[in-house]
């Protein structure tokens, strides 16, 4: 298991490096998703399957998708057209491809070995997490939900398109 | 009746206050009435007080009138108190009487001038200050009067303030006398810290007890007081202001710069004579200063063109005589000369004023001439004044006083032949420049017409002063002519007699003869050179136009170039220094703090770039530093 851990760690590092060095936002996003997957594998190894699942579902599945949507919505003009042309180039594919492939292999290995975990590490399953979550950390849950509500309202308000090109009272162009 | 003493200076001050408050709203006549009237009443009171002083027993005993305590600072409690003794009595008699005559004259002289009441206000302030100076019982009150007359001199010289040249002349007078005043103030400090009092009589007593003859402190105090006196009396080296002070109206020149203020220095030295007797070196300095000044000024006077400047240099020269007398210990002679000088110099100035105003403000003598017929009263009084100034023998007051001085310079223990010779040479030169002035102005052919003749208010003072210039000498008749030294004896209680150990009366007679002869020779000389000026031989013309002669003439004309000297060595370096320090490096301590904070602000405002990345970087740096501190310290 230790080897899996180190491989995942390496992939996480490399892909994160790639995230911050890309020119194209979509590329960076995709690399980040790879990074998220590798971190999920690490979680799994550490005996936190619930956290791993959450990482994939929420982080990679919701937040990054949101990112992608917004960037697509931005409709970055000529750059986007260029990007189209480059999308099908093999050089661009290599990096994410290799990383994803290795990740994929890991997935297979981990899943096949479900139940076997890192030596000396206890598995803390969802049941335990749930009990503690709605026990001592109840207040935190409520606050988190409040935060999400606030985020929702804020995002709605800020995301509104105004008729008058965004000018507010007293603001100068 | 002696209690009326305090009214003598009070009345002119009251006149000043009234004229300052309501001067703009009253007519010129009323202003003149108040102005001249206050001095007139003051003069009358002076006579009354003087009479009482002489007659009431104990006759001639000094009278002190304390009004109130001025301030109380520890042991320093000067009072406003007036001291009347023979010396101050003579002074106030002259000041009030001559002052009144000049006020009367200026009622007509300044008629039609704007600022008429302002003029009288300032003149009253001056008379009040001068009387305070003379009557002061302690040196602090004397210094108050001293500064007051200095202020009035400034105000009156710059009376026609619209012409900036007058303002500059006024400032020059003030600044130069200020140098002397500063020295005098230091002298007062010295006296107070060493003797503990500034009351004049006490001071004299304590000084003669505590300080031996020739002591350093007495010399220091005396030389500082001499500095103050030299400034006020326009002696070397502070004589540069007086010729330029002629920019003021003529009555001002007559009163302030001839009769009264410039003699304040003489009065000061006479009052504090004990200090000077205790410092023989300084006393000799006084004499040498007087002798040098009188020669310098008389030589310069011969070259001047402006009639008032001749009289200014003449004043400097005559006060040089007084200083010379003081320097050899002839205190009464100096005061005697002061009195006669006040009469004839005021007369000369008033006469010059009549000429100037008659020719519509013409000052250049070379443009005058032949005014004898057109201004007869002015001519005759001017002639009498000139005769008195030149000390023509026997008939004029100037003869008696000047000869007394010269005789006592010769005979005194502290005198010397050199000083006497200087004085005698000065007498010759006096006669030359005086009669040059007279001939150029009144004799010869008329070149201009008189437009305004003097009225009665101008003629009365002229005639009165002319009479006084003739008979005033008779109060001190020397031994060779009758021996009636009433004035000297009168002053004995205040001013000790001259120490003469080897006085030969015959020499006195010879000296009188020589000086009278020289005076007459001077008149001849002036007549030859200045009246018969058109008929010069070719040779004389050549000499006159040679570069050396013109250079010397220029040098003397500018008063031996003292102005140039002072400008080059004192004024210019100071101005350069002031310009250099325009940024004011001491101020920099405070402005430097402001500058530093401003530059610091500029540095700090860089950190507010508004860029998010910059702030994030700041956070990162901060975190690194904090963790570093937490880890490694």
């Amino acid at each position, binding site marked *: 298991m230790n080897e899996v851990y180190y491989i995942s760690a390496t992939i996480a590092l490399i892909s994160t490096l790639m995230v911050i060095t890309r020119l194209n936002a979509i590329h960076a996003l995709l690399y980040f998703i790879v990074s998220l997957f590798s971190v999920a594998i690490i979680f799994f190894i*550490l005996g936190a399957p619930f956290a791993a699942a959450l990482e994939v579902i929420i982080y990679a599945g919701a937040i990054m998708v949101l990112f992608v949507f917004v960037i697509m919505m931005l409709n*970055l003009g000529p750059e986007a057209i260029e990007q189209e042309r480059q999308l099908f180039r093999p050089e661009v594919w290599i990096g994410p491809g290799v990383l994803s492939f290795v990740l994929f292999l890991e997935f297979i290995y981990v899943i096949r070995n479900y139940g076997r975990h890192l030596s000396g590490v206890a598995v803390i399953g969802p049941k335990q997490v749930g009990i503690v979550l709605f026990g001592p950390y109840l207040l935190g849950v409520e606050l988190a939900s409040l935060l999400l509500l606030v985020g929702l309202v804020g995002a709605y308000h800020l995301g509104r398109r105004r008729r008058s090109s965004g000018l507010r009272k007293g603001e100068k162009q | 009746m002696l209690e009326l003493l305090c009214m003598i200076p009070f009345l002119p001050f009251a006149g000043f206050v009234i004229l300052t408050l309501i001067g703009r709203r009253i007519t010129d006549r009323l202003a003149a009435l108040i102005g001249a009237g206050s001095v007139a009443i003051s003069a009358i009171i002076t006579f009354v007080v003087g009479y009482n002083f002489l007659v009431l027993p104990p006759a001639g005993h000094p009278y002190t009138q304390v009004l109130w305590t001025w301030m109380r600072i520890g042991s320093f409690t000067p009072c406003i108190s007036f001291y009347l003794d023979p010396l101050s009595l003579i002074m106030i008699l002259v000041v009030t009487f001559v002052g009144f005559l000049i006020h009367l004259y200026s009622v007509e002289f300044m008629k039609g001038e704007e600022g008429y009441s302002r003029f009288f206000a300032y003149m009253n302030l001056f008379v009040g200050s001068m009387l305070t100076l003379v009557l002061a019982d302690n040196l602090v009150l004397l210094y108050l009067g001293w500064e007051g007359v200095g202020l009035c001199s400034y105000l009156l010289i710059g009376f026609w303030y619209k012409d900036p040249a007058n303002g500059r002349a006024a400032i020059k007078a003030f600044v130069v006398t200020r140098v002397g005043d500063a020295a005098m103030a230091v002298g007062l400090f010295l006296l107070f810290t060493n003797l503990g009092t500034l009351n004049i009589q006490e001071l004299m007593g304590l000084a003669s007890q505590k300080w031996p003859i020739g002591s350093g402190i007495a010399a220091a105090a005396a030389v500082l007081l001499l500095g103050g006196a030299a400034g006020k009396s326009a002696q070397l080296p502070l004589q540069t202001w007086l010729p330029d002070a002629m920019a003021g109206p003529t009555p001002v020149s007559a009163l302030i710069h001839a009769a009264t203020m410039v003699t304040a220095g003489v009065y000061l030295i006479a009052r504090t004579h004990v200090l000077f007797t205790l410092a023989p070196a300084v006393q000799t300095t006084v004499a040498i200063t007087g002798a040098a000044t009188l020669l310098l000024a008389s030589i310069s006077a011969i070259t001047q063109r402006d009639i008032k400047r001749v009289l200014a240099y003449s004043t400097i020269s005559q006060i040089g005589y007084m200083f010379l007398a003081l320097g050899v210990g002839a205190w009464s002679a100096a005061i005697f000369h002061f009195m006669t000088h006040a009469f004839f110099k005021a007369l000369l100035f008033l006469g010059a004023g009549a000429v100037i105003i008659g020719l519509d403000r013409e000052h250049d003598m070379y443009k005058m001439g032949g005014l004898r017929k057109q201004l007869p009263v002015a001519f005759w009084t001017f002639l009498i004044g000139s005769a008195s100034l030149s000390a023509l023998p026997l008939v004029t007051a100037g003869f008696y006083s000047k000869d007394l001085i010269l005789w006592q310079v010769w005979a005194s223990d502290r005198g010397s032949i050199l000083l006497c010779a200087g004085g005698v040479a000065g007498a010759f030169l006096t006669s030359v420049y005086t009669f040059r002035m007279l001939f150029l102005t009144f004799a010869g052919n008329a070149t201009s017409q008189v437009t305004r003749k003097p009225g009665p208010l101008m003629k009365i003072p002229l005639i009165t002063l002319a009479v006084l210039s003739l008979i005033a000498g008779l109060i001190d008749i020397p031994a060779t002519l009758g021996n009636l030294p009433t004035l000297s004896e009168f002053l004995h209680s205040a001013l000790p007699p001259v120490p003469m150990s080897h006085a030969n009366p015959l020499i006195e007679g010879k000296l009188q003869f020589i000086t009278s002869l020289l005076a007459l020779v001077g008149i001849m000389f002036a007549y030859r050179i200045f009246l018969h000026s058109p008929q010069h031989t070719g040779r004389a013309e050549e000499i006159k136009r040679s570069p050396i002669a013109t250079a010397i003439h220029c040098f003397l004309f500018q008063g031996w170039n003292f102005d140039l000297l002072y400008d080059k060595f004192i004024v210019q370096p100071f101005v350069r220094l002031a310009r250099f320090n325009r940024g004011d490096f001491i101020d920099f301590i405070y402005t430097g703090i402001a500058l530093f904070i401003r530059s610091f602000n500029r540095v700090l405002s860089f950190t507010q770039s508004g860029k998010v990345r910059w702030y994030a970087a700041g956070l990162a740096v901060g975190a690194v530093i904090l963790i570093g501190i937490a880890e490694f310290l």
Partner: protein
Amino acid sequence: MEHGLILAGMLFCIGLAGVIVRRNIIFTLLSIEIMLNASGLAFVVAGSRWGQADGQIIFIFILAMAAAEVSVGLALLLQLYHKFKTLDSDTASRMRG
């Protein structure tokens, strides 16, 4: 478990570098996500070390917070884009007053 923490640290630093270096706001937000992810990793590692569920709980909270923050941040990004017509964060540097 130091290896886990080291990894978390490295990821965090990479994210921090990304925040500071990149001018494009999208990348800034992305880098912030990297950082949040790294800190979550650190928590889970710690929880695993001590055998408690608390690490995962904190991770859940971090996740919730990241979600809220991303939505608001992207909304702001859209506003910025409409206003300045560019995604350069340095253009929004004029401060009022």
